[in-house]
């Protein structure tokens, strides 16, 4: 019975893996294709043309990757720095008009970014932030902060304050209790929130174009312009680079999940608890 169930589970896993991996297959094939004409099921010739093109300075891929990493890293750090105290307040305490505060926190995800960014753009021009990497970083916080705040709020709500209370009666100041007990406890949740923030920033196109004004080149911008062009090889290679962080993060998250197996039951998936 048990073995049967396990076999069924493995089959399900295989189907799920296939569903995730299959769309990437053409991407892989195109990336290494030299010649691939209509009736052929597989490429008829192979080449590294796409990768060679990217390595050329004119392609700006390296510059765009660095920009994406820097902006994404900074946006991640800043949105966790904002989301941690905000999530702690929302998850732990009851206060008047809390619902309204939550609404305003979520508003940037609810309102189409195009609408709000028009206004932001005007202000940024006046402040001299338009067309700068710093401006792009700032505008990326609009969609990332709500994610980190909501994720961390659910982590704090699930966690309660009992451990901190225990620490206090044992002689820890509020600050010591936070550093020694709270922070290690919410670390998995912080990792998940950071991952979300980074991926949201990494895949941001509209905000980058509007505020960066073509001055700040990131990977999605190269990808979009390549996709508009007629070279599927170049587009596929770029797309592969583009999904790399997400895949790396997923692998890291899975390893993390396994390491924390014993605690998983208490903390929910990746320490996320119930996202509400």
């Amino acid at each position, binding site marked *: 019975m048990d073995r049967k169930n396990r076999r069924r589970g493995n089959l399900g896993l295989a189907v799920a893996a296939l569903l995730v991996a299959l769309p990437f297959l053409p991407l892989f094939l195109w990336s290494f294709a030299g010649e691939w004409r209509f009736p052929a099921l597989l490429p008829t010739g192979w080449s590294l043309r796409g990768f060679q093109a990217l390595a050329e300075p004119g392609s700006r891929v390296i510059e765009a990757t660095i920009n994406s990493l820097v902006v994404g890293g900074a946006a991640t750090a800043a949105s966790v720095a904002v989301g941690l105290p905000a999530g702690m307040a929302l998850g732990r305490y009851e206060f008047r008009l809390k619902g309204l505060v939550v609404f305003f926190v979520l508003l940037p995800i609810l309102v189409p970014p195009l609408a709000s960014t028009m206004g932001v753009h005007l202000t940024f021009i006046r402040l001299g932030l338009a067309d700068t990497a710093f401006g792009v970083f700032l505008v990326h916080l609009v969609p990332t902060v709500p994610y980190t705040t909501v994720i961390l709020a659910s982590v704090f709500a699930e966690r309660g304050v009992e*451990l901190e*209370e*225990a620490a*206090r*009666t*044992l*002689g820890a100041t509020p600050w010591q209790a936070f550093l*020694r*007990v709270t922070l290690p406890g919410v670390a998995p949740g912080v990792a998940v929130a950071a991952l979300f923030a980074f991926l949201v920033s990494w895949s941001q196109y509209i905000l980058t174009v509007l505020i960066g004004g073509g001055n700040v080149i990131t990977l999605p911008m190269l990808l979009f312009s390549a996709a508009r062009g007629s070279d599927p090889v170049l587009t596929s290679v770029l797309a592969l680079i583009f999904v790399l962080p997400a895949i790396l993060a997923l692998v890291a998250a899975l390893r993390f999940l396994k390491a924390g197996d014993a605690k998983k039951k208490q903390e929910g998936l990746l320490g996320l608890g119930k996202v509400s």
Partner: protein
Amino acid sequence: MSTRLEIQDLTHSYGGDRPALSGLTLSVEPGELVALLGPSGCGKTTALKIIAGLLSPTAGDVRIGGRSVLNVPPEQREAAMVFQKSLLFPHMTVESNVGFGLRMRGTPRGEMRERVERALRRVHMGGFATRKPAALSGGQQQRVALARALVTEPRLLLLDEPLSALDANLREGMRGLIKEVQREGKHTTVFVTHDQEEAVILADRIALVTDGHLRMYDRPEAFYDRPLNREIAEFFGAANFLHGQARNGTVETPLGALKLAIPATSGEVTLTIRPEAVRLEGGENSFSARVREATYLGTQVLYGLEASGGVALKAALPPHTRLTVGDDVLVRLPAESLWALGR
């Protein structure tokens, strides 16, 4: 090390219409173990949190060692708390958990290691220093939590239902351990529980709290021998209540005039006697009754008796008394076991 704890007129309201705690006043002598006994939701945990400094009272005062601590944050009160759940820090080893309080105080490493080791040995967890809490059973976790609270030699030990999350077979061992280390360290201790048996076994004195009010504060035996009122008597398992008129040192009841060792004040009174105190013999305060019911309980037999005038009484007698339903017996209520309840 031993410190007196005084609580004065402690009142706390969470904002509802009835305060969780109203006017609680009691003092705990140095080295004494006091049980705050009451049903869940009676305000006893609130009181404990106020003593620990985790809650601020709406009104009243808490004094530790004669000094008001209302403005002292929890970490400076030296009032270590053990909770219902062990609340060990999951990311630390047993050793780091126990050493936590010492680390917060900046104790030198060598001294810390020595004290942690001693504390773990004291709760019979010497070999578990490098384990993570998740690798321990519930009972072991609770013992480590006790060691963690004791290692800093706190002025007060506050225990919030530390046994109620444990299996019945572990509870007795943990209870013994708490009593042992508390006597040994002479810690002034407040123990919150809803379990009357636990309170009776552990406590030097019991403070019975219901609905946020202190109902009775006395030694455990007083709750059996001299309960203040019927509610308290019933809470502690008293089953026999007799109404009567007190006159000249005796009480006129449907069973006749009964003598009391401690005479009741004149007027209408309710007498109580514990089922265990009822005797099958003649003499002072005796009358005849018929056995209506017999329940064998192993260590004793509980008889339901009916005396003249239809008065029902419960008597718990040794198991070798073999009475059968319908037997007529002579029953005596010893004067020293009869107690007149207040109202």
